[in-house]
């Protein structure tokens, strides 16, 4: 069943992960979503700052060149942006999750993204 269209910022440096994430978002009912991409945290901060309309969701990788996910999350929160930020990482140790939440992320999910994981995230933030 299709859901309302949302604006998503996908922050991920590896193309393979971006390809899988886009497909998973589409499968989670988002054929009409606007999905912008940022290949590192610095580009993500720029995208958020320059966005014509606020994003509904940010999916943030941890380890990236130039600026990592923790720093990007801190900077986005520092701009007063309240968009849900979900950390996405293959390092799912409690310390990693806690570090992301401390940076200002709202939730954490493990890589690789799937239709099911995204469904849970979208429902949690009332984007489904």
């Amino acid at each position, binding site marked *: 069943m299709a859901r309302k269209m949302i604006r998503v910022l996908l922050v991920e440096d590896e*193309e393979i*992960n971006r390809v899988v994430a886009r497909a998973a978002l589409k*499968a989670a009912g988002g054929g009409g979503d606007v999905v912008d991409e940022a290949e590192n945290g610095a580009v993500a901060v720029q995208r958020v700052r320059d966005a014509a309309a606020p994003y509904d969701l940010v999916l943030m990788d941890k380890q990236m060149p130039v600026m990592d996910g923790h720093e990007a999350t801190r900077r986005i929160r520092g701009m007063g942006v309240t968009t849900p930020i979900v950390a996405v990482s*293959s390092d799912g140790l409690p310390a990693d999750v806690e570090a992301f939440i401390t940076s200002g992320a709202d939730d954490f999910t493990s*890589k*690789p993204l*799937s239709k099911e994981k995204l469904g849970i995230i979208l429902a949690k933030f009332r984007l489904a």
Partner: protein
Amino acid sequence: MAAAALTSQLNALVNNMFAMGLLDDQFQQLQMLQDSTAPDFVSEVVTLFCDDGERIICELARQLEKPNVDFDRVDSYVHQLKGSSASVGAQKVKNTCIQFREFCQQRSRDGCLKTLDLVRTEFYDLRNKFQAMLQLEQQIQACYPKH
């Protein structure tokens, strides 16, 4: 008839890859994400994995040849390979990357070199099977000419 025989071969190959532990259920997830609007999705992800893997393994060999190994840098590359392995469902390669990262944490050059050999063997074995899989898919598609 040819398509049926090729499809049977393809199914046997993929089933064998699961049975040997080369693939995990993430690969099935990818297959389910493929549809008529993205008919080459699995092929795209597999190709990205193969290209990434080759590049990363070459870089790892280069890094481990240096007299002073930067283990954090090596770990970063292994992390990338682990990530792309996880994305495509390459279970064996992913698990070997987990071991590899432990040797990086231990700053063990010997451990890293031995694990690099293992991951290289596993990666190329999987890549060869993926290439055979993609070839069979192309042959099957050729049996159904587009109008």
